[in-house]
């Protein structure tokens, strides 16, 4: 394992110290328990938005703390859900009395820990709503299973809900918007290489020199299918094809197309994938009206890409375009 780290046990703490030193005017960092929050929190009268999850997906979530996006983020150990005490402290630190939205990715660990935290926060008199994001079409959805994973739509939901909260909208509306984003977004990812969890010290899975894994999660979980490496255009067809097959997005729709690097795939490849995605969607009658291209929800140094499509209407488009000022996403400010 080759990584620019010091001690495997200190990876998250060292990173948090770096974030604090790098962005002192924008965010504050609590080291016990771990959470990152807006330097100007709590923002009076504003619904606060808290998210979190295992580390290793940077810039998500800590890089999205700031004006127009998250009020706080709770990082767990690498790929391990954070604990309720972190979420509770973060919730208390950013709550201004207007209520707090927890945006939770659908992994059993994240869901359960956030549930306990929400219960504890309510016990302390804070109004909390939780929305679970589950946009990954690689996983079969069913009432009887853990359901689909939360992936790329999380980034979009955090941006859009952040803008709505900034406008002063009430908790119920911000939560409804979060559900709307989740209902209208679908994702699928793939990997060319595995990643290595620092504490594990070796790659989570092995892929042959000519193989790729389709339907990968963001924790190095195995995917839907392993196959021979294909061209960017073919990969786009598999990923975006599965998204459209899911039925939520189709001909005539305007979408936000989010082409995400899993961490190790460089921008030059993302633009090629975007070109092919644009062509593919054009052929299927879907129009890209907004896009996001880059490493935003990653899996350490994994090479690969995920595609998220979000069906847009005027409201979502306006909120997407609204100013945002965070270390990981910034425009209009």
């Amino acid at each position, binding site marked *: 394992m080759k990584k620019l780290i010091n001690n495997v046990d200190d990876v998250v703490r060292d990173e948090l110290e770096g974030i604090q030193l790098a962005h002192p005017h924008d965010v504050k960092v609590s080291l016990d328990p771990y959470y990152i929050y807006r330097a100007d929190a709590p923002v009076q009268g504003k619904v606060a938005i808290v998210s979190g999850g295992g580390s290793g997906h940077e810039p998500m979530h800590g890089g999205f703390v700031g004006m127009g996006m998250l009020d706080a983020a709770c990082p*767990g150990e690498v790929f*391990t859900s954070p604990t*309720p005490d972190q979420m509770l402290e973060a919730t208390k630190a950013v709550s201004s009395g207007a209520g707090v939205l927890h945006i939770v990715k659908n992994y059993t*660990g994240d869901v*359960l820990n956030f549930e306990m935290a929400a219960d504890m926060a309510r016990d302390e008199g804070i109004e909390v709503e939780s929305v679970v994001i589950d946009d990954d079409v690689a996983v079969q959805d069913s009432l009887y*299973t*853990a359901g689909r994973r939360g992936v790329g739509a999380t980034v979009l939901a955090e941006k859009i809900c952040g803008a709505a909260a900034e406008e002063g909208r009430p908790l119920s509306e911000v939560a409804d918007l979060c559900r709307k984003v989740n209902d209208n977004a679908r994702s699928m990812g793939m990997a060319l290489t595995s990643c290595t969890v620092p504490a594990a010290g070796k790659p989570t899975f092995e892929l042959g020199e000519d193989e790729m894994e389709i339907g990968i999660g963001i924790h190095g*979980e195995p995917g839907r299918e392993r196959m021979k490496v294909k061209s960017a255009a073919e990969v786009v067809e598999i990923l975006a094809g599965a998204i459209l097959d899911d039925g939520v997005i189709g001909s005539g729709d305007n979408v936000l197309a989010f082409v995400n690097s899993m961490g190790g795939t460089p921008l030059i490849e993302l633009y090629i994938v975007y070109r092919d995605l644009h062509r593919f969607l054009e052929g299927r009658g879907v129009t890209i009206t907004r896009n996001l291209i880059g490493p935003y929800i990653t899996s350490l140094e994994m090479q690969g890409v995920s595609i998220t499509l979000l069906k847009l209407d005027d409201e979502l488009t306006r909120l997407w375009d609204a100013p945002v000022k965070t270390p990981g996403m910034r425009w209009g400010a």
Partner: protein
Amino acid sequence: MNSVGLEEVLAWLREAAARIEEQKEYLTQLDSAIGDADHGINMNRGFKAALERLEANPPEDIAAALKSVAMALIGKVGGASGPLYGTMFMEMAKAIDGKERLEAADVAAAFRAGIDGIKARGKAEEGDKTMIDALEPAYAALQEAVASGAGVGEAIAAAADAAARGMEATIPLVARKGRASYLGERSAGHQDPGATSSHLLLAAAAEAWGS
């Protein structure tokens, strides 16, 4: 042993922590096949923290001891197993609140409350390939032993045996809950790590309360 007091409960927790530390790699290895390779690391972090807590603030009674473990697990484990085992210990604490010693029937009632806590939180049923598949058969055996008049030691030994069988029976199952469920059919053929750690906890009790 016909009943257990604070000393015996603490002996159980120490034995459990020791076994988890010993089996850390094994649990993680099971989790790497159908999960994300952290169950042993998570459980060990949590039980180490629990023992430290118990030593730093010696509990007044059994309920306080179980509650302290619950807080340590909730605060230190993370992942799915942290809140689940944390809830289990919290519900067990509530169920025996105020009791100085536990008869076999008290142990069964606490165990029932603990399992119900896990199920309420995790929504898993038997057959979903989770810790429930070790815990439910263990409870059934415990309850049966209690009904036939067994003492704590005998009853918990029966429960531990049943947990071992339940744990092994997870091997052919297709996971419907937790991270392994993403694998669908590919999850069959592997023993569930959570069912394995559940068995460890019961085997530790059988050892601690055995004589």
